[in-house]
């Protein structure tokens, strides 16, 4: 009997439903909440999820050509994420599992990003660099869990980039044709100006760089040069801490996951670093680097096979669920 798991993702702006049959992806339905202005309003996103949730699930089952009765289990991202959004996904998953009398499988969203990255790129035991709007962390597997070796001490890389371009009037939209406004603006810059480059051990910090860069723009430094300098400094700091963690952990592969992984300038820097270290570089393609239901389904399948399930009445959402709180018994299988 093949194991078939349906996974629900609703941690932030995407309501995703994925279905996997062993290693095969048989459904991938996504609905993305697009705010009219500003960022995500959790309540609005949750309302949107409530409206499209049931039909997204039916649509996924239909596209997979299976009935809900064929599922082995239902997986759901219980965190980390925005509370109101998480609760919608959790409610759908609990209801399905109870009604169908199928096991419910708890999944950590960050673990899911890593597991789907490993699935699509085929790396086995990488140093993980997780860069998104809300996350900047460097982790590697050690003694049963993905341990965090470095992270941002203040704001995440994606959040930093978004804030900077918004404050200088280049955004929204933040990303045009897959290229972030920071990268676009930096293309015209030539001169590196003096801004703080902050690396503390294996950690980075971007709040000082943000303040200094905004001040430089106000002082009248050409905006392209500020963008260029910000890009060079922020990306170099990320690559430097990754290199440090690589040396510390002695891993032979680097896996870059999350929405910011798409930048070609960041990729160039990672390529130079990993080839000089003789390690393999894998960057998760944009389709699976952003939030989706497939990653929850796939991680749920791995967890289920290791005997991890949860009673629906105990399946609370965990807004601050740390990556290194999760046991990974399936690692290496």
């Amino acid at each position: 009997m093949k194991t078939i798991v349906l996974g629900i993702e609703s941690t932030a702006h995407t309501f995703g439903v994925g279905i996997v049959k062993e290693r095969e992806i048989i459904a991938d339905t996504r609905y993305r909440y697009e705010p009219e202005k500003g960022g995500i309003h959790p309540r609005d996103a949750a309302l949107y999820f409530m409206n499209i949730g049931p039909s997204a699930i039916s649509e996924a089952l239909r596209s997979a050509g299976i009935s809900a009765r064929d599922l082995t289990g239902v997986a759901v991202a219980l965190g980390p994420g925005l509370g109101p959004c998480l609760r919608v996904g959790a409610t759908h998953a609990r209801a399905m599992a109870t009604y169908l009398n199928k096991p419910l499988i708890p999944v950590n969203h960050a673990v899911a990003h890593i597991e789907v990255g490993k699935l699509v790129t085929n790396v086995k035991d990488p140093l993980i660099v997780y860069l998104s709007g809300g996350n900047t962390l460097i982790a590697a597997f050690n003694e049963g869990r993905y341990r965090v070796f470095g992270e941002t001490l203040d704001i995440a890389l994606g959040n930093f980039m978004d804030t900077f371009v918004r404050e200088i009037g280049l955004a929204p939209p933040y990303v045009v044709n897959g290229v972030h406004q920071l990268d676009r603006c930096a293309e015209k810059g030539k001169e590196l100006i003096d801004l703080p480059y902050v690396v503390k051990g294996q950690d980075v910090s971007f709040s000082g760089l943000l303040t200094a860069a905004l001040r430089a723009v106000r002082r009248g430094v050409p905006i392209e040069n500020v963008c260029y300098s910000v890009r060079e400094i922020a990306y170099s700091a990320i690559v430097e801490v990754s290199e440090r963690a690589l040396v510390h952990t002695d891993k032979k592969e680097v896996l870059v996951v999350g929405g910011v992984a798409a930048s070609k300038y960041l990729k160039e820097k990672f390529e130079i670093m990993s080839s000089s270290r003789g390690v393999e570089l894998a960057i998760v393609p944009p389709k699976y680097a952003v939030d989706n239901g497939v990653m929850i389904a796939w991680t749920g399948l791995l967890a289920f096979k290791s005997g991890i399930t949860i009673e629906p009445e105990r399946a609370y959402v965990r807004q601050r669920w740390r990556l290194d709180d999760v046991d990974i018994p399936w690692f290496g299988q």
Partner: protein
Amino acid sequence: MLTSRGSGSELEVLAVGAEAVLLKGYFLGIKSVYKVRVPKPYRNPKLDLKVRRERTSAEAKHMISARRGGVNSPYILLVDPDAGVIVMEYIEGDLLRNILNSLPECRACTLLEHIGIMAGRLHNEGIVHGDLTTSNIIVCRRIGKPYLIDFGLARASEDIEDRGVDVHLFLRSLESAHFRVKDMAFRCFLNGYGKVVGEENLTKVVNKVKEIRLRGRYVEERRRHH
């Protein structure tokens, strides 16, 4: 290419670190380590030169201050910031990272307490190490004393925040590479640290560490992808 001074012998590569290459050789007849910060081709050349020059001179300065404050660290023999080179005394020993998991508990505790004392002395001297991990401590084979190395990210600072980052980094290196002994090791470390900085400062720093770790959680909580 660099050659060893004073003996005519070639330099031997000791280790290739994340930001520098360590070479072993002789300097004026003394067994030495040449720490050479190599250019990073992924960094803009101007930025790269600035980062290497600043880190080389800061490292040398802070190593000297650390010794003055009673922290075991290698003697400095030569500094050349523009070339990114520091020549220092060679310490015969093992990296704490490689031996901690196999040390008997009481020996590990004494050692960690000593390391806590060194961290406290460093902080009392107005310096933070910036990369305090078990990879940056050598346990001298001859006398069993810990030596603090790699001051590349050290800074002059008396901020509780920066001291907290030091202690946080050390704790995290215990969690990530020495998971089984981390609680004992951290307790012994804080015991030594507290002896030197005093009860009041210890409480401040420990609270700051808690705060720093919570901040990481807060960042994780905010999920906004592109």
